[in-house]
Every structure is written in structure tokens, then in C-alpha cells.
């Protein structure tokens, strides 16, 4: 059989996925530092669910199970979802979200390479819509919590929902800055008053900004490793920064400064790990810029005017639908053709 070219220099899909997971390690470390070891339980649970559901679906679909399990894509989805969920989410929420991500968003559409939507974001959005209360209950960073939960306590809480005797739920949770900002603004508090709260750090949220910085670090590693290109993160972050900057300049009393939007919420995770999912993103260079900028603008709009504190998941899913359109209209000029 004539199979030229006979040589190849490509990294395997598995190695790409492993590098993405490696890039997530600093963020996980930061998570443990800020919120405690519970995230490790969440990660393990999500990974297990992802592997089991993926294998089950592959079996049902008569696909080679080992080939696809070892590509690592299910684990990446699981990790991204786990990192997006509140750190002390109950076990069934994690399992359900991961199962939705793998079964509904990925395998039903045809598995690796065929999912039009970002699986982790579909899982996240499904949970957010269905269980808004649980999904917005974030534990306070250990440094701010009235009561510091140990690893075992966190694990118990994840699996049984029980806190150590005498500890109230309020003692270990706090609103996220974006959530707090939103509720306080509706109560006509001024931004200056609001940001006095200890949950705000220098750039974003106390603790959260450290995690965001770790994502940034991992993202730079991915760019250096040529796993992702600069187009998506730069366009996304620039869009958020410009939107936030313009609004902030217009009315600093009502709109938070760009730093909070860049380092708060899921901005950094999204910039380097979510929108850079190649399968559900556009393929043309111009398309990438449009896609990422669109998500940035929409995220900002949802944060400021929408019903949910953070809009990353919805913005990503919305622009996932637009990908074929964006691709069709941004085809690059082919060699030898006029514009």
C-alpha cells in the first residue's frame, strides 16, 4: 500500500493530553494550599467516573476501548470539570457532572474529536442550571474560614455532607467575590464599600488569585510546548480586559476593575484550558481570535448583567455553536488564490 509520507514527527494525542494535565498541576497545588486537600478527592472521583463512563460508552458503541481510554482526553475533561466545581461539592454532584460531560457531551456525539461542545463546560452548565444553590456554595479560603477543615473532614463532607460536630455550614463557606459583588451591587452598595470585604485580595479573590496565577503559569507552559497557540488566550484576556477597562473607566463606582475580572472567577482557567480545547474550537487563525474575543465579551456581559455570577460556561457553549459559522467565514487565503 502506498502510504507516503513514511515519516512523522508528530507527538501523540496521549502526550498532548498528558502535557495539559501536567500544566494543571501548579493550579492543583495552589488549590490545595488555598482550600485544603478536598480538591484531591474531587479530582480522583471525577477521574474515576470519567474513565468508567467512557469505557462503558465505548463498549456500548463497539469502539476499541483501550485505544480510546489511553488517549487521556476523558481525564483532561474530568480534571477541568473538577477544578471548575466548588471545592467541597458533594460526591454525587461530581459524579453526575462528569457523567453528563462524558456521556452526553462527548460520547453521544461520537467520542473524541466529534463533540461540538466543550464537555467540561456542558457538565458544569448542566449542574449550574439544575443545582444553582450547591454550585454557588464555595468554601471560604482556609485563611479566611472561621473553622479550618482538615483533609479528613473535607472528605467526610464530600461523601456524607456532614460537618464535624458543632461547625455550622456558614463557618466554612463564603460567597465568591463575583457572587458577592453581584448581590451587593443589587443592594445599592458602592464598589468601594464592597471591596472592603476580606474576600477580595490584591488582584482578584483572596486565594483565588493565587490559583489564577497558577493557571497562567500552566498556560504559558502549554504555549511554550506548542500545545496551544497564543491566539486564543490573548484574544480572550484582551477582550475581558478591554470590556472591564471601558466599563471601569465609565463608572468606577459600579464596575469592578479589570484585575478582578482577569484574576477572579474562572477567567484564567478558561483562557488557557477551556477555550483552547481544539475539538470544540475554530481552526482558522482569524476564527480563533473572533471566537476567543467573543467569549471574553460575552463572559463579561453575563457577569455584569446576567443572572449568574460567572458566565464562562455559557459563553463557551454559546460560541461552540458558532464555530462552524466562524470557520466558514474566516477561511484563510489559499496559495495562488486572490483574497
Amino acid at each position, binding site marked *: *500500500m502506498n502510504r507516503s509520507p513514511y515519516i512523522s514527527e508528530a507527538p501523540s494525542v496521549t502526550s498532548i493530553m498528558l502535557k495539559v494535565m501536567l500544566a494543571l498541576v501548579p493550579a492543583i497545588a495552589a488549590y490545595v494550599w488555598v482550600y485544603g486537600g478536598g480538591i484531591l478527592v474531587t479530582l480522583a472521583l471525577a477521574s474515576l467516573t470519567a474513565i468508567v463512563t467512557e469505557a462503558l460508552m465505548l463498549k456500548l458503541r*463497539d*469502539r*476499541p*476501548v*483501550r*485505544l480510546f481510554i489511553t488517549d487521556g482526553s476523558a481525564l483532561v475533561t474530568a480534571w477541568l470539570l473538577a477544578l471548575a466545581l466548588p471545592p467541597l461539592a458533594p460526591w454525587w454532584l461530581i459524579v453526575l457532572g462528569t457523567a453528563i460531560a462524558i456521556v452526553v457531551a462527548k460520547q453521544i456525539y461520537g467520542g473524541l474529536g466529534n463533540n461540538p461542545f466543550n464537555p467540561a463546560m456542558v457538565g458544569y452548565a448542566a449542574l449550574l442550571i439544575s443545582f444553582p444553590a450547591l454550585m454557588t456554595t464555595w468554601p471560604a479560603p482556609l485563611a479566611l474560614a472561621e473553622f479550618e477543615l482538615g483533609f479528613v473532614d473535607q472528605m467526610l463532607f464530600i461523601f456524607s455532607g456532614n460537618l464535624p460536630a458543632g461547625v455550622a455550614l456558614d463557618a466554612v463557606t463564603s460567597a465568591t467575590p463575583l457572587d458577592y459583588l453581584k448581590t451587593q451591587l443589587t443592594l445599592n452598595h458602592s464598589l468601594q464599600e464592597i471591596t472592603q470585604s476580606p474576600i477580595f485580595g490584591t488582584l482578584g479573590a483572596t486565594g483565588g488569585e493565587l490559583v489564577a496565577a497558577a493557571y497562567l503559569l500552566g498556560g504559558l507552559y502549554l504555549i511554550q510546548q506548542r500545545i496551544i497557540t497564543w491566539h486564543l488566550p490573548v484574544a480572550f484576556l484582551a477582550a475581558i480586559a478591554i470590556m472591564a477597562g471601558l466599563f471601569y473607566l465609565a463608572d468606577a463606582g459600579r464596575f469592578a476593575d479589570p484585575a478582578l475580572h482577569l484574576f477572579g472567577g474562572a477567567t484564567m482557567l478558561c483562557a488557557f484550558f477551556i477555550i483552547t480545547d481544539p475539538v470544540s474550537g475554530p481552526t482558522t487563525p482569524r476564527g480563533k481570535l473572533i471566537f476567543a474575543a467573543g467569549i471574553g465579551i460575552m463572559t463579561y456581559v453575563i457577569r455584569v448583567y446576567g443572572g449568574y455570577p460567572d458566565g464562562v460556561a455559557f459563553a463557551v457553549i454559546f460560541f461552540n455553536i458558532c464555530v462552524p459559522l466562524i470557520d466558514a467565514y474566516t477561511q484563510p487565503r489559499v496559495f495562488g488564490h486572490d483574497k
Partner: protein
Amino acid sequence: MLTALYVMLGLALLLGVVLGYSALKFKVEGDPLVARIDAILPQTQCGQCGYPGCKPYAMAIAKGEADINQCPPGGDAGVHALADLLGVEYKPLNAEHGLPKPKSVAVIDENVCIGCTLCIQACPVDAILGAAKHMHTVIASECTGCELCVAPCPVDCITMEPIAESPANWKWRYPVFEIKPEPAVTRKIAE
């Protein structure tokens, strides 16, 4: 109640005028559908479909008299294309009208030919050259492989020869499917 009646009546009159006008103004002469169906048919003009050529068959399909699966030279791909065009469901070729064969050309055995011109009259695309009592020959590039010349020949000197694959008309094959099934799956299929 009366108002309702008046409104309905008025609307009926108004819309009736609009409908009448459109019926006259936008009337389509001829049937563009026939041309589009004809464009899909292979133009072999073999008559295997039961109609005397591709165009009559196209007209019959357009009128709904003929089914879309009566053209063996068009093959499965042809039926699919017709099904797509007409928005009907695909159905496999009707074996009554024959089965698809590799494309071939008619070849006249020039030693046997008596020059009767019967094949010339049968050829739907005038692809046979010759005169009475002179040897005939097929213009291979024009021959559609319809086989209509084979039956009339009184001395059976015409044979259909499949067009052999050569480096000139050879095609690259569809790449072998990349996902190899796991042994378990193959076994299940084999059983």
C-alpha cells in the same frame, strides 16, 4: 358575529386576488425537475429502466410514474443522488431492471461483421461507423456501453468488453479504515 363574517369575507376576496395573481405570474413553463433528474442519469440510453432512453425515464420520474431505482448503470450512487434531489427515501436498485455491471464498450469482430447496419440503427448515440456491406466499427470513446447493438446483430459479432483498469484511468483507493476493531468485536461479527 357579522363583523367576523365580513372580515373573513374581505380577507378571502383579498387573498384570492393575491393567489390568482401569483398563479398567473409565477407559472413555471416546462419542468426544470426533468432536466435536473436527467443530469443525474448516466446517459447510457440503454433502456434498462423500461423507458426508451434517459430523458423519458427522467420525465417518468418527475411525473411520479417511475421509481428512482430502475437505473442499473447509474448504480447505487445514482439512486442516492436521485433520492437526495427528490427528497424521498433511498431504496436499493430494483433487480428486475438488471444489476450494475462494470462499464464496458462494444467491440465488433471485424472478421465476422457482414455490414448489415442493424447495429447502426440500434445505437442511441451514433457511435457505430460503417455503411451497407462494409465492415462496421465502434467509436470506443463515444460508446456508452448500453448493449443495445448486441441483440440486433444477426451474426453475433458484437461483444461487450469491460474497460480494463490501466495506469491512465486508475484511481486511488479509499484509505483503509483507520480504527481497527478489537478482537472481541471481530469475533462477534465472525460468529
